[in-house]
């Protein structure tokens, strides 16, 4: 449906907001990648069928709620990620705030009959507190949600990502409407500058300054075009913030880019999304098509003197293409290799023309800033890192998922209050922030406020927001080696320090995990790390030694134990550990049956024995032992 003017858009927004406010109930089935993999689409289909068979007044689209006499009824939709991926598929019922976890299609009839029909809560589908084992009814009662502040994720899990109507009903495109009829491009740019927004992709560079320099570069070259690019090539292991935003609120990303284009006088934008995110690609492509039909993208948007269109480019699976200069070369159709950024891409970026590249989360925050004003945004978070930040909280925490907190929130609060502490009551050992090139911070650093500058000063970095929590059973040498090996496979191979340095670091760390080497090996590691940090061509190589340097800084003793005592304190490095069965063994035979190489012998009710020569240290015996009788030392 074509919206022809700003006035028509505002009228449509008012109409839809009224419908939205009049809804009696909303049933949101999470259709993020995690829940879809768990069967959320089948749950949605089962709920749809069950409601059709009931006498309830249920609509599948916001606009069809208007077809009846008065407002009201229930809206049942597939939404973006709710964040609590750990317990998907999730079904959230509002305004009652009932969160059902691990829902199966066979639960649909009960949900429709009992909860939607009779207003009863089904206890067995509720989340149980990991400590007290008490059921918790909804977000309000769960630490995971109670300590979050959702700004960029506000719509994720609240609306259908496919529905422009829902986006409009919840304040979407208000910012663009305001920009088009009351603000000048300069005023939009100034709003972004004054908000203090810093790029959420990793570097934390001031977004306003980036925009300003690109605008100046373009003014200096009047014949050139200015491009805006959205970096959706999120490749850090364990990170899925940007994916969730693209899947859960695609219109916000597109509106942010349109606002940027308006402020910068750009007519052409690109979204670069990694090929491994098919759902994000599909939802963005659909959103772009819907906006073109509505006249919100393309020639003369809303009948105003502003034209802007977008193209989606899929990445081919190279981690390094998340680096801005490599990404631009990839869009140009060239091999994704970075170039030295001695000339900034704001000056000469895509096709050698002035370019503004921001990541998904940064773009998605722009409508919020224009809508609520710079001062409102700057008041959230800390002075030098205003706003909120989305993190993907994974690893050995009880509650894993997508979280958003104000900048300056401590690591402790994120891990223990939102994350619900460490699994199985084990001790916290380290948290890895900033993706593979980030660093590992120990327990002493738990009270650090999370912002760009503090994390960098502590030897890690914000990165795009991955947060991997490790417990006492994690070997820090093994972790460092894991990340170095990841980067070794993903280095583009253009410059010597990164390409050859990572290969050498990997083999040096492998020696440590085998208990070989001496202190001089560690100085070799440090010397190579220095060369990589100083001399590598791009940020991937320059930050690649971080996992080694931060673990050496905070867990040096663990390295020394490997080298000097041939001991892996966490019991991980296979060459250095032995598995032994203690007196606690009841002779239940579980481990004997589980051992894939037949290394365990023992009769029923007789102490079992592991033959060390046959044992491959796979840990299967330890995993099945119900009596904690398998000792790893």
């Amino acid at each position, binding site marked *: 449906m074509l919206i022809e003017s700003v006035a028509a858009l505002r009228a449509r927004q008012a109409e839809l907001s009224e419908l939205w406010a009049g809804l009696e109930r909303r049933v949101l089935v999470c259709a993020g990648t995690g829940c879809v993999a768990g069967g959320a689409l089948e749950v949605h289909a089962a709920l749809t069928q069950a409601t059709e068979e009931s006498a309830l007044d249920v609509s599948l689209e916001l606009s069809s709620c208007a077809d009846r006499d008065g407002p009201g009824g229930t809206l049942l939709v597939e939404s973006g990620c709710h964040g609590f991926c750990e317990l998907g598929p999730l079904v959230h019922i509002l305004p009652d705030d009932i969160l059902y976890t691990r829902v199966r299609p066979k639960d649909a009839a009960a949900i429709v009959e009992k909860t939607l029909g009779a207003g009863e809560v089904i206890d067995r589908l509720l989340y149980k507190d990991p400590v007290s084992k008490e059921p918790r009814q909804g977000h309000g009662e769960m630490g995971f949600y109670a300590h979050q502040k959702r700004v960029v994720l506000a719509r994720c899990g609240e609306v259908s990502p496919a529905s422009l109507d829902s986006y409009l009903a919840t304040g979407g495109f208000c910012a663009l409407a305001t920009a088009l009829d009351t603000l000048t491009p300069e005023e939009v740019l100034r709003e972004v500058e004054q908000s203090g927004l810093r790029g959420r992709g990793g570097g934390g560079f001031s977004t306003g300054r980036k925009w300003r320099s690109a605008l100046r570069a373009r003014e200096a070259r009047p014949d050139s075009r200015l491009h805006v690019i959205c970096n959706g090539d999120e490749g850090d292991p364990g990170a899925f913030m940007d994916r969730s935003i693209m899947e859960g609120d695609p219109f916000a990303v597109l509106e942010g880019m349109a606002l940027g284009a308006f402020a910068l006088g750009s007519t052409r934008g690109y979204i670069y999304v990694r090929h491994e995110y098919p759902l994000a690609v599909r939802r963005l492509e659909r959103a772009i098509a819907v906006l073109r039909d509505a006249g919100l993208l393309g020639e003369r948007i809303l009948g105003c003197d502003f034209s802007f269109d977008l193209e989606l480019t899929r990445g081919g699976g*190279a981690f*390094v293409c998340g680096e801005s200069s490599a990404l631009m070369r990839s869009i140009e159709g060239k*091999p994704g*290799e970075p*170039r*030295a950024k*001695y*000339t900034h891409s704001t000056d000469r970026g895509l096709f050698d023309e002035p370019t503004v590249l921001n990541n998904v989360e940064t773009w998605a925050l722009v409508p919020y800033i224009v809508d609520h004003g710079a001062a409102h945004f700057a008041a959230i978070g800390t002075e030098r890192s205003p706003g909120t930040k989305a993190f993907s909280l994974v690893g050995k925490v009880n509650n894993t998922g997508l979280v958003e907190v104000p900048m300056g929130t401590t690591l402790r609060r994120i891990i223990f209050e939102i994350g619900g502490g460490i699994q199985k009551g084990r001790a916290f050992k380290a948290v890895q922030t900033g993706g593979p090139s980030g660093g590992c911070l120990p327990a002493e650093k738990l009270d650090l406020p999370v912002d760009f500058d503090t994390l960098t000063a502590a030897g890690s970095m914000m990165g795009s927001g991955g947060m991997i929590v490790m417990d006492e059973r994690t070997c820090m040498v093994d972790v460092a080696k894991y990340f170095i090996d990841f980067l*070794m*496979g*993903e*280095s*583009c*191979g*253009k*410059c*010597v*320090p990164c*390409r*050859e*340095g*990572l*290969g*050498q670091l990997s*083999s040096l760390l492998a020696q440590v995990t085998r208990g070989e080497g001496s202190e001089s090996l560690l100085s*070799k590691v440090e*010397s*190579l790390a*220095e*060369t990589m940090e*100083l*001399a*590598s*061509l791009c940020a991937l190589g320059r930050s690649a030694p971080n996992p080694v340097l931060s673990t050496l800084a905070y867990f040096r003793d663990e390295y020394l134990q490997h080298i000097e005592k041939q001991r892996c304190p966490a019991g991980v490095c296979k060459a250095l550990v032995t598995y032994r069965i203690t007196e606690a063994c009841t002779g239940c035979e579980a481990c004997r049956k589980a051992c894939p190489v037949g290394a365990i012998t023992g009769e029923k009710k007789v102490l079992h024995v592991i033959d060390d020569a046959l044992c491959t240290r796979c840990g299967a015996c330890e995993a099945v032992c119900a009596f904690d009788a398998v000792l790893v030392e």
Partner: protein
Amino acid sequence: MHSMQLNGRLVNFEAGQTLLEVARANEVPIPTLCHHPGLESHGGCRLCVVEVTRAEWDGWWRMVSACEFPAADDLIVATESERLSRTRRNVVDLLLARCPETPFTVALGRDFGLAKSSLAPRAEPDDCILCGLCVRVCAAVGAHAIAGADRGVHKQVGPPYAPPSFERPPGLAPAGDCIGCLCCAEICPTGHIRYENNAQGREIWGRSFRVVECASCGAPLGTPEQLDHFAARSGLSRDYFERCDACSKLDTARAFDQQVMGEGTS
């Protein structure tokens, strides 16, 4: 006129020059490996790193590749320091571990005081140091027959869409767009790109080419593909390329002589 500080000395430069160009113009040596004045800068070897700072940077400095960093007014550049020596030596050490037997890297190591690499040598080394000169010269010629393939420690030079090295016989992968001009082999500093001129013609990149001889003197000229390419690229007639340089010159001189002398005597 622009000026900057180079190793404590005020030097002039022209807009658009790189630090390497300014240093060379002032006879300040900077080691390079992947640089060639006729080709686009690559910035891959990192041997030409130098330290740059500015008075207003309050002691903050950065290490940059001189072959790419643009000279700028009031920049303060140091081409030698303890840290730079250590970095360059480590870079050479890494290359020596990559190509432990290659005469070129062995000589390079000797220049930097390394009899052998202090690091683990590559398991099955070849002579390629991945400087990218061959790829850039092929692009400059306009053939674009080879490129960097794969990434990280597996990176290699080869034709686009070639099967991975473990799925094909050893040696260079067949390059379909190769014109057999030998530029890549000539520019390769380590002799990794091998070729053969024999009675049947020329072999390189898994391809066999016929070699055309000079129409006048019979000296070997190049492959027909190469002459076609040069003719198409230059817009000159193919005939122009069918004589060797010496014969072309001779022909021109004769024609000139005939014309001038002929006019003089008439």
